[in-house]
């Protein structure tokens, strides 16, 4: 494997298994925060790995040895976009409502009773898509600027600006919520 690429099927198998095990939690976390519920997050995660499975050999070849996590998250990102498009055609409640993001949270025990965390989650739901995604990648997945840039198809510089603006905007939303008229009423997603 002198060029970093598998020489045979066994190595290719091992690499995919490694990728899958290393990033299942990342893909699931990203999916969960994107779609806001476990059922759809499971579907999205499953579809992401099936897509990855189909294109893994080519991705390895084209990655030039770089980590494949941004590629995986980009697959999930594209699938999530399709998910939203499909949902938008149907008369369903907005998937991005703050209630939907916070209600089924598996880390509920951490967030519950912590108004500041709840207001942050609600604020994240109000951000524009690209800013919300960047924050999820940075804070839920721990991706650095370069990884996020690759996942979003942006330059490193543009990603740095995007993250900065996302945090500033979120701070503003949270400050307004806590200092102003208090947390939004239940069911009030703006």
């Amino acid at each position, binding site marked *: 494997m002198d060029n970093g690429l598998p020489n045979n099927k066994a190595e290719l*198998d091992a690499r995919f298994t490694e990728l899958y095990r290393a990033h299942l939690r990342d893909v699931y976390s990203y999916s969960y925060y994107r779609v806001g519920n476990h059922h759809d997050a499971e579907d999205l995660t*499953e579809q992401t790995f099936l897509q990855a499975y189909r294109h893994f050999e080519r991705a390895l070849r084209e990655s030039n040895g770089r980590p494949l996590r941004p590629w995986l998250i980009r697959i999930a990102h594209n699938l999530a976009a399709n998910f939203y498009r499909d949902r938008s055609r149907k008369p369903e409640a907005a998937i991005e409502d703050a209630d939907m993001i916070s209600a089924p949270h598996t880390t509920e025990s951490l967030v519950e009773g912590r108004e*500041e*965390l709840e207001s942050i989650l609600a604020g994240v739901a109000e951000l524009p898509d690209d800013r919300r995604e960047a924050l999820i990648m940075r804070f839920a997945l721990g991706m650095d600027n370069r990884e996020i840039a690759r996942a979003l198809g942006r330059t490193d510089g543009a990603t740095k600006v995007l993250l900065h603006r996302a945090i500033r905007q979120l701070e503003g939303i949270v400050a307004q919520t806590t200092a102003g008229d208090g947390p939004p009423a239940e069911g009030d997603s703006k």
Partner: protein
Amino acid sequence: MSVGATEFEALLREALAPVDPPAGLAERLELTLVSLTELAQDELESWELSAMRDPRNWVRPAAAVVVGASAGTALVLVRVRARHRARKRQSGNLLELAERTIHDIADEARRVLPGT
């Protein structure tokens, strides 16, 4: 960066804590991948998977850790294979057939593994 900003980012990190996938998801996903490779060996060799000479061995290492995966895989395969062959007789588009079979495997895996 101000102290306030640092504290805010710490809160943000806490609010957006990583979410563990349900235990059943990993099991179901591995079963789906194993089933797919079995079918690939049998029926789907001429689409994209053909790049891999022996798809039978795909994801076997992952499957090895799944308790009961063999029985589950067999059941999924029996069910999916029957529908796949019926569809194959009706379909002239191999890629479309393959796509539908992948979805079928995933759906069947959900049914075979209750509680996932």
